[in-house]
């Protein structure tokens, strides 16, 4: 066990965990940030997507010891009031069915738009292809990313 200082959603957290613990389980089991989901544990489904210095990463496959001073953003910290353009678009398009994968979808989309505010259809498809949705909400995911891009300044 070791103590790790983490910068998550603009706040400082301290976690006393084993060095190889994936960030996902630090967030969920230790810090009580439950918006980031477990889906596969091997980086294949994207349900656990968070931002590390603004880049979308799979928290299930990222040991806490590898984070260092990098800034972590989870779905809880994407916006203060849940009104990030991607969150707004997700509501307007009414994307979710069961909703379990949607935090990961939103984090992937937000990272894409931060880097590429006006993505092409192909860029959207490439960015979002790594996030599984078992309910099959993919049409709406696409539509919501496009809508969010019109809201991003």
């Amino acid at each position, binding site marked *: 066990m070791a103590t790790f200082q983490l910068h998550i959603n603009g706040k400082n957290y301290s976690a006393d965990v*084993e060095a190889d*613990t994936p960030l996902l389980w630090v967030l969920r089991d230790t810090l009580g940030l439950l918006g980031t*989901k477990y889906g596969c544990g091997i980086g294949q489904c994207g*349900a656990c997507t968070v931002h590390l210095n603004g880049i979308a990463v799979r928290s299930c496959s990222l040991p806490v010891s590898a984070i260092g001073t990098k800034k972590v953003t989870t779905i809880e910290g994407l916006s203060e009031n849940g009104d990030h353009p991607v969150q707004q678009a997700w*509501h307007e398009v009414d994307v*979710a069915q*069961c909703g379990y994968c949607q935090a990961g979808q939103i984090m992937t989309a937000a990272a894409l738009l931060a880097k590429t505010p006006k993505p092409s259809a192909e860029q959207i498809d490439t960015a979002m292809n790594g996030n599984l949705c078992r309910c099959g909400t993919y049409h709406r995911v696409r539509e919501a990313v496009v809508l969010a891009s019109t809201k991003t300044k």
Partner: protein
Amino acid sequence: METLMKTNRREFLKLAVTSTGGLMLGFSWASASGFASVDEATFAADVNFNSYLSISPDDVITIFSPNPELGQNIKTSFPMIVAEELDADWTKVKVIQAALDTKKYERQLTGGSGAIPHSWERLRKAGATARQMLIEAAAKRWNVSAATLITENGKVIDKANNKSATYGELANEAAAIPVPTEVKLKDKKDFKIIGQPIKNVENHALFTGKPLFGLDFYRDGMLHAMIQRPQSFGTKIKSVDSASAKAMPGIIDIVQFKNNVAIVGKSTWQILKARKVLKIEYEADATIESTTDHDKLFKDLLNSKEASVKRKDGDVETAFKNAAKVITREYQCPFLPHNPMEPMNFFAHVRPDGVELVGPSQTPDMARNEVAKLLGIAPEKITLELTRLGGGFGRRLKADYVLEAAELSSIVKAPVKVTWTREDDMGGGMYRPAVRYRFEAALDANNNLVGYRLRGVGINSGNPTREDNFPSGAVDNLLIDAVEYKSAITTGAWRAPITNFLAYAEQSFIDEVAGEAKQDPVQFRLALLDKAKKSPVGAIKYDIDRMKAVIQLAAEKAEWGKKKNVLQGFSVYFSHRSYVAQVAEIEMKKGKPVLQRIIAAADCGIVVNLSGAMQQVRGGIVDGLGHAFFGNLTFVNGEVAQKNFNAYRMIRLKEIPEIDVHFVNNGIDPTGLGEPALPPTGGAVANALFKATGKRIYSQPFIKQEGLEGVNLGTKM
């Protein structure tokens, strides 16, 4: 036309003026469905007294939604129905998930596409009764006849005297009004909320990461656990060496019960690490099977003399003997895991005085009863709180994972949450059964379908046929029989049970028979339905007119047979009371077939929530397409060969075609939509692929077919 509903005090009572003031109404769901009503005396003790809706003085209307929400969107559509008849202001409706309460609610489960059809009338009545009481309260207050008053958007209005009062203002007075014995339901053409695309009431919570799901349940003092189950079906534990695992950091206990070894610890990661050093030896307990064994087995079963006859019309032997042409085809599908994105999990706290259960279940009542039986305690001593379900697809109809959690908690005498990894989930059973079908059709010299035979054989499949579905009723001589093989591999309902594959096989076969009969596939189906209408053979359990209507609508919207350079495939299926027809469209790009579009026509009766319904159809089609193309679970010596998404392929965003959805607007009461869009998809796509490649597909997954390995899905690949 207005519908007049009879209500009596047994069905619908006001509960109490709420502590903060306002009206709280209880509603008996049972009586509206024609169940025997109970005595007034029983009612006084709150028995059989079901859902609540409450109205606060500040106009907030709270509606409890009793059924498990797994993405079918009933947490939004149930309250929409209540709010419609209440004439509520939808923006002031608050929805709360009700815990399991068999005294208050009827059929508190999610499955069989039945939530809306079973609750439609009860929900309407709940809203209408409250509305009538509010009107009567206003009439009394203003000293006018109730008949002169109208309601609109959460207000009672007296137009003649230019007066209005909000429901909140009237709630206390309404609570003093006797419950009406008769309530008027709205004329369907006056619906303002039903039929609209209303956004999911949980959107904000979902999109900001609020803990809604079973896996999100944490409590101080709660232990975590994972369970190592046998890796191979047909084996049992021989020996366990848990010494090194038990010595790992954070591990509290390692417990063996039945064929399970539970690792109990302080955190998920510590448990995962300890699990790796756990040593368990297994030995054979039953026949250990591989997929190659099943392939051989199916061939034997198809020729078995021991089939159970499901339906027999006319004289099949003679029809086939005298046929001008006989067409025989076989179709096979593999086992499939359900793979909801949230793996199985449940929280249990077994205390000396009672049991607390929390988690995602499609069948909370059954789960509670099974736990009661397992632990030998009364169901009344068990509470079950429903979380949101991160998908179900039938997997959460089973209570195995609830029972495990309860048993473990009773052994370790502590609150514990059991979490399944993806590997546990995919390797842990309850699969869509593998089945094989042999279809035979007899055509006479004029290409009329005069004989039809279907044999279904399956592994733990139950009856793998749906003997009364189309084309039964349209063929004079017909025989449908089945053989089931019992295996150690566990199976269960998988979204659109049996029909998820049977529809593909049947609709592919019908297409091929139409081709042999030199008829257009759409006309061929319509002609069979006309024959069934004119001279029905035996019992017909599907509605011929509804089926014809979706066929015609899909053909019209897709411009069937009229598009240039578009290769179309047709399919139609009746399941769970609803009807869906689909046209799949393929275009050739650089010499390769590309699935461009699927046009769907659905008849689920009245659409309650247009947004949810559109997505339900699209999602069902994506599900049907993905599993037809990629879904493949195989076994080697009883063990699943694909245990995570790196080995088991799921359809992804790039692979979806455009999907156009059209609803038949026939005004009949809702008949369900959770499953019916899925079954037709595989057939429509396979029939279009035949036009593109000249090859018929006889087994799933399609991607394993010769010539289809490189076929792209999606418009942009």
